[in-house]
């Protein structure tokens, strides 16, 4: 059978690869993923890319496709959610104490912890994670302190790398990214009410009615899939 092609935001890479591998073992079909920025994938789908399913990292680009009738209308739903966290490079000492991270409040002195370095975050201008971070910091009244001290990165992963390498003493990333890295330490979680809910919408692509794809689409909501997402640190809507 023809492979099922899934276009997915880069931050879903590990979870989806695991789910896809499991699905391939159970069914005689290949599942292939193209991981890239949601914006890029959305534009490609607009230009008739051979994708059966699109997993976006934000609503905006899914809306973009919906407006252009490129997705199967009623198939759209939210796959997983995520949380925004503040991370710092992991020192050797605190490798163990990564269990309970405090919630970030007005009192958290981000600027002080930053020292002379920069605050790594995804580019607020165009990357959803960055936009959420900006919203949260604004809500907490901290945006003006740090807005000249940020290092806007191409994506969350790049922001994480800056913290991992100690180039930035603080970074704002998804909880999932923080969980996957042993080289950063979560020092705070942003309250969910400080920013728009972080949800990853998923939809079937219009004009590619294929039974195999429909089945995998359903599989993404299966218990197994949900467990995989949960292990990686995603929240389940």
């Amino acid at each position, binding site marked *: 059978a023809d492979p099922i*092609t899934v*276009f997915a935001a*880069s*931050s879903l*890479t*590990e979870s989806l690869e695991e789910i896809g591998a499991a699905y391939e073992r159970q069914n005689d079909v290949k599942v*292939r*993923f*193209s*991981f*890239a920025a949601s914006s*890029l*994938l959305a*534009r*490609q789908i607009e*230009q*008739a*890319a*051979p*994708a059966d399913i699109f997993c976006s990292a934000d609503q905006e680009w899914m809306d973009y496709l919906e407006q252009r009738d490129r997705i199967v209308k009623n198939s759209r739903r939210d796959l997983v959610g995520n949380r925004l966290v503040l991370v710092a490079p992991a020192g050797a000492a605190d490798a163990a104490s990564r269990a309970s991270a405090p919630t970030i409040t007005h009192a958290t002195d981000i600027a002080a912890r930053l020292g002379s370095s920069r605050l790594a975050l995804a580019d607020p201008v165009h990357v959803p994670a960055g936009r959420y971070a900006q919203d949260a910091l604004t809500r907490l009244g901290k945006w003006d302190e740090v807005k000249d001290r940020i290092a806007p990165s191409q994506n969350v*992963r790049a922001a*994480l*790398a800056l913290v*991992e390498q100690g180039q930035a003493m603080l970074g704002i990333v998804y909880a999932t*990214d923080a969980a*996957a*890295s*042993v*080289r950063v330490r979560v020092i705070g979680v942003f309250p969910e009410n400080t920013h728009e809910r972080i949800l990853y919408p998923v939809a079937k692509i219009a004009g590619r009615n294929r039974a195999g794809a429909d089945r995998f689409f359903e599989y993404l909501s299966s218990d197994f899939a949900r467990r995989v997402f949960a292990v990686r640190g995603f929240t389940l809507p």
Partner: protein
Amino acid sequence: MLTDLEWSAIRLSMNVALRSVVLNLPLAMMVAWVLARRRFRGRALLDAFVHLPLVLPPVVVGYGLLLIFGSRGPIGSILAERLGIHLAFTPSGAALATAVMTFPLMVRTIRLSLEAVDPGLEEAARTLGAGRIDRFFSITLPLMAPGVLSGAILAFAAGLGEFGAVITFVSNIPGHTQTLPLAMYTALQSPGGEETAAKLAVVSFTLALIGLIASELVGRRVRARLGR
């Protein structure tokens, strides 16, 4: 050591780099010749146009290709309907994107060595009865061979590393359009993927090394022929 998908990325990268070089060579030589030898209005514009893929961020070039050669684009739709040729999201498309990106490198290098060809030798060929085309193939081309070779290997190396235009035009589908740089990028998306990325980087380096050694051997012969 390497997974199947990684092997396929290696094969695809080689394939894409080589095809783009072969695709580019004739056109690059023509354009280089026109830029080096003809004087006409708009020559500077053509020159700047040739350099455009270098000047624009690769993502923009890829997006432009998608708009033109995508199945909805003006050229892409014709190719798809009339000839059944699909470029967007196919390995051939990766070769096209790479070709477009490396075109300026090739034109520059070829043009440089074309301008270094002694016009006295072409004059001699004229007095021996060789017309323009004949002269080009029998005298000019062999004499600029070092530059053509140099341009080819430069384009090959750049082709191995081409990322932005490729991912934008053909997406990042493992086993289908995922070239080595795309695989490296994907590896880096997972925390802890640095090792895989480093491994692939070594592979890339090795491929380039092989290409360079091959070109060096050919180049040495060519130069020995020319007495340099």
